[in-house]
């Protein structure tokens, strides 16, 4: 009999505990309801792409020397370099250059290895088209610069999480002059210089 009563007691205790945990959970969900939505309402609000964002590749026709390094470093040999050897100038002359962004994986290896810096990455990521062949950009299309989010009067630019001041979790309603957490690259360079000049007299002689 005592054993049975003990069992009933334990069961009751467990039920109370379960109810307590559900109550705790409910208070958590209830608390979430008064927080501001973190939603970025896309066509009207856009995140500012980070500094190292690898978007659509930009190409400068006049700088290219048709060396085809970009083709060799590309994981799938994607760039198409159409050139002809000009015997009079004894130089390769570029006729066409194109990359199919429907196939490109945006690794930016070509940008990394280009000897003349004629390739660069942009922050453009809105590449939706009705026909996949429209994504095959030629040198003219690749020479265009994207419209910056911060310049677009139709768009409210919102800073990404890594660019928010310390302790701020949400980019909405943030003043433009509020700096992000941590030091800026320029400040770090300054510090380094100071540290070097401080340690120079000792290590000099």
């Amino acid at each position: 009999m005592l054993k049975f009563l003990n069992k009933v007691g334990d069961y009751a205790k467990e039920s109370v505990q379960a109810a307590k945990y559900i109550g705790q959970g409910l208070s958590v969900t209830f608390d979430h309801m008064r927080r501001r939505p973190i939603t970025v309402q896309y066509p009207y609000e856009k995140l500012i792409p980070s500094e190292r964002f690898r978007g659509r590749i930009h190409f400068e026709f006049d700088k290219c020397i048709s060396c085809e390094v970009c083709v060799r470093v590309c994981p799938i040999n994607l760039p198409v370099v159409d050139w002809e050897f000009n015997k009079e100038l004894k130089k390769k002359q570029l006729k066409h250059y194109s990359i199919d962004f429907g196939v490109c994986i945006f690794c930016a290896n070509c940008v990394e290895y280009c000897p003349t810096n004629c390739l660069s990455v942009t922050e453009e990521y809105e590449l939706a088209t009705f026909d996949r062949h429209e994504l095959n950009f030629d040198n003219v299309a690749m020479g265009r610069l994207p419209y910056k989010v911060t310049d677009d009067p139709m768009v409210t630019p919102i800073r990404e999480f890594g660019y928010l001041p310390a302790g701020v979790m949400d980019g909405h309603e943030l003043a433009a002059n509020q700096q992000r957490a941590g030091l800026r690259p320029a400040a770090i360079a300054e510090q380094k210089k100071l540290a070097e000049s401080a340690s120079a007299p000792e290590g000099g002689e």
Partner: protein
Amino acid sequence: MNPGIDLQQRFIETLTDFGLSDGISKLIWMPVPMLLMIFGATVGVLVSVWLERKISAAAQQRIGPEFIGPLGILAPVADGMKLVFKEDVVPANSDPWLFTLGPALVVIPVFLSYLIVPFGENLLVSNVGLGIFLWIAFSSIVPIGLLMSGYSSNNKYALLGGLRAAAQSISYEIPLALAVLAIVMMSNSLSTVEIVEKQAGYGILGWNVWRQPFGFILFWISALAECERIPFDLPEAEEELVAGYQTEYSGMKFALFYLGSYVNLVLSALLVAVLYFGGWELPIPIETLADLLHIPQDNAILQVVDASLGITMTLLKAYFFLFLAILLRWTVPRVRIDQLLDLGWKFLLPVGLANLLITAGLKLTLPFAFGG
């Protein structure tokens, strides 16, 4: 107690004043509350779908529907319109008759149950003596429809969903009925109007929750299970069964299931308000307020205010429980089928029986408080 507004009496009197016979004016009156109730239930569903989407969004720090009408109020209407115009697909090798009959059999009893939901002393479609028993009887038709649609779809997921729905409905009907039985015993009546009247007089202190706290929890858990709301949404568990018995449905038939589930949820919330939270009664009884302000009981304005306050109170209480159900949806994970049956048979059923027994004992020992 003042009888409040009797719309039926007034309506019929007006018509007979125009020279119509008594029978014809009664006949004209008859469809009015029914249509009003169906309309009200549908609007209630639209509101609860909107609330579900908005509150879910808020709980997840999203915005939810925003551009379809102010604050996205028209989103459920747009959903409904889409479903109306969608193609009605009957899968090959299914039983077309059972397939069509299933959703109808699910929706009709739920709508019929609104017969007994009172919004005021005379503000209900029909004051059936059987009242709350009628609701339990109607709600046990629903699993037949679910099983029917699951079986006729010729789809393994639909069949599994249908079987689960039937098992769940049957196991939770019993604790639900036990919880209701305790209330009925205390009120000496099955009629919903009388159950509310028994809670009147003392304001918030007279409500049944204080006398039936375990019964209330029991009722709410079982009602959630009956509505297949999220801790108990096994029949349509989308990670396992696609959508359960709804898998093969589209267009209007799917809309019926969708409508039915929300109508059922609103109904359950309304019945919690009626059975445990004093229905249309205010937290402070309106008679006391009228006495304080020296307004006579038969004042016409007081009666109108009383009636509208009654409707508002019922809806407020019901929508509070709807809100709780939505919040629970994002708080608790889905139970397993064995946990579900364990909870139903090993926890709710014994607790329900004990609750009934204790209520009976208290009724004998404390007849003034427990309706002896």
